[in-house]
């Protein structure tokens, strides 16, 4: 059963990871691979788009914790966007909004990188 998939698109110097389906202990390694590959390619400005994510468990949340410091050490960030209320509630319950910026739209998240001068204009 294809219950989780990801795709990655580069927009200028920002890489967007699109999540689809169910992110749990079984599917979390797939997202870990995505982060590892981006880090290997020195892509440290990352937006994760949650629009098509139906479900997340703590195993999925753990993936974000595993890579965030490495990414910030390299002057990048993981910004999160377009979460359903249901998924946001889980992040919120565990206090993640203190550590991660969460945006209503993907564009807002991308623009935040531009504001902080970490990428040149991508248009």
């Amino acid at each position: 059963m294809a219950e989780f998939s990801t795709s990655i698109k580069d927009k200028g110097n920002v890489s967007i990871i699109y999540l689809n389906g169910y992110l749990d202990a079984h599917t979390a390694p797939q997202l870990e691979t995505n982060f590892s590959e981006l880090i290997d390619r020195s892509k440290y400005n990352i937006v994760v788009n949650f629009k098509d994510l139906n479900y997340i468990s703590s195993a999925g949340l753990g993936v974000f914790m595993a890579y965030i410091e490495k990414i910030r050490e390299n002057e990048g960030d993981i910004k999160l966007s377009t979460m359903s209320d249901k998924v946001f509630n889980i992040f919120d319950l565990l206090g993640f909004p203190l550590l991660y910026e969460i945006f209503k739209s993907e564009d807002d998240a991308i623009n935040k990188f531009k504001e902080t001068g970490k990428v040149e204009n991508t248009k």
Partner: protein
Amino acid sequence: MMPSINSKRPVKLKTQNKIEKELRVSSRTENLSLIREFIRSAAAQVGMKPGITEDIMLAVDEACTNIIKHAYKSFPDGEILIKLRYDDHKFTITITDYGNSFHPESVPDPDLQKYYRQHRVGGLGMYLMKSLMDEVKYRSVPGKYNEVYLMKYFNNSH
């Protein structure tokens, strides 16, 4: 503002039934989707609201993930038995495993600042279970079995 999780709020049910069901699976993460579907279908039978059903699915997923990773240390052929009962306005899930015993009191509440420095997380699942359910209990008979009880209460009115 995002709405908060309403897991503690009394819930009206469309139907009142009594159900008892059982699912036996091996300790593999690929079975988590099957486990969630088992909960979803039972919750639908008693007319549970989707939001509450999702809370219970997540709590059961977390309990089973902990069993797979900690009780069985990712050994794939351990047994997990999930018993579910709805009766008298109470939804109870009992999850039994035969792996290493577990000491819930040794798991502190999560500290994200610490996890940030350590690049790892721990205890998030237990914290979620406690937040999403009305009651969570553990019973461990070392060398024999461990049980987790997850409970959700519903009010009487329709």
